[in-house]
């Protein structure tokens, strides 16, 4: 079976790939694995030494959990979430990275504490991706002092461990104009929000790659000359990362996870076959 992968868009945290000759079911498995199974680092629990700010400990711990941490190196360095399950936290450097946050204000001072103030203690590679996320605002004479323990986790456990914020598989459009019906009224060209249709040389020309499948052209056509179909074996996979992993890393890891799940499934099938004396 021949297949091809083409990079359609790569900017910032976004990656859009065009797959040809890859089954939809496989891509959907990869899409789901990107959200639920690709591991990344996030703050798991927080030890508060002092917190006199207006936000409760629980709210601050929740906000810390949602801050994306750099996980590219951590994927190799730290043990998987399954191996770390039930491990006591402080002792295990193979499972946990420690970060600390200390801030205080003087009389008459108001200060915003940012994610950039969350400093790595044990591992300089595990640090907040964005420096400018406000964590809390301290009023005059207030103090916050805490240690945060981050570990690898998966999106199935809590969405804070999901490296992909957007992960979608979409069909690839095939726009066709029935020329024997078309009156060249131009209504479809007018309603299209992405200029996927154009009136050129006395014909309606279609640009399939621009189509977002909104069907407005189909609905607007008075003579039903516009047909919106899909290409059988072409699909777009779009990944937007939270910043903890590069989108291409997410795709690579997701494929690895799907493959290992399939291998496991095959080995179970084999063992059943062996048991039944096959």
């Amino acid at each position, binding site marked *: 079976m021949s297949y091809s992968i083409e990079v359609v868009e790569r900017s*910032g945290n976004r990656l859009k790939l065009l797959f040809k000759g890859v089954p939809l079911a496989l891509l959907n498995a990869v899409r789901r694995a990107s959200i639920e199974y690709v591991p990344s680092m996030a703050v798991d629990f927080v030890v508060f030494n002092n917190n*006199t*700010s*207006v*936000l409760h400990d629980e709210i601050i711990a929740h*906000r810390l959990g*949602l*801050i*994306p941490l750099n996980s590219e190196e951590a994927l190799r360095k730290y043990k998987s979430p399954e191996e770390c399950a039930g491990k006591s936290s402080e002792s295990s450097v193979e499972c946990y990275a420690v970060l600390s946050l200390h801030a205080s204000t003087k009389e008459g001072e*108001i200060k915003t504490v940012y*994610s950039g103030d969350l400093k790595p203690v044990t591992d300089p590679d595990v640090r907040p*991706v*964005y*420096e*400018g*996320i*406000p964590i*809390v*605002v*301290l*009023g*005059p*004479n*207030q*103090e916050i002092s805490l240690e945060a323990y981050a570990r690898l986790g998966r999106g199935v456990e809590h*969405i804070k461990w*999901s490296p992909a*914020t*957007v992960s979608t598989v979409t069909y690839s459009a095939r726009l066709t104009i029935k020329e024997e019906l078309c009156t060249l009224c131009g209504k479809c060209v007018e309603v299209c929000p992405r200029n996927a249709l154009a009136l050129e040389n006395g014909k309606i020309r279609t640009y399939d790659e621009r189509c977002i499948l909104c069907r407005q052209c189909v609905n607007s056509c008075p003579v039903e000359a516009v047909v919106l179909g899909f290409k059988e074996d072409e699909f777009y996979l779009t990944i*937007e990362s*939270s*910043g903890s992993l590069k989108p291409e890393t997410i795709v690579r890891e997701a494929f690895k996870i799907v493959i290992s799940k399939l291998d496991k499934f095959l080995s179970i099938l084999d063992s059943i076959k062996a048991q039944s004396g096959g």
Partner: protein
Amino acid sequence: MVIIPVRCFTCGAVIGDKWEAFVEGVKLGKDPGKVLDELGVKRYCCRRMFISHLDLIEELVMYSRKV
């Protein structure tokens, strides 16, 4: 809300780091929609996080208990 959420409630994209840039832009008199475009906030789930947010914590800290 008391303080800008770290992530968009719907899609999970990080928005917290863009809040102050958004406020600055709007204070300069720019159109809020244009400021969000410049910040790369594309989806309407993320955009509503900004335009519907009121940063109450700035006022709250003045009424906090004495330590």
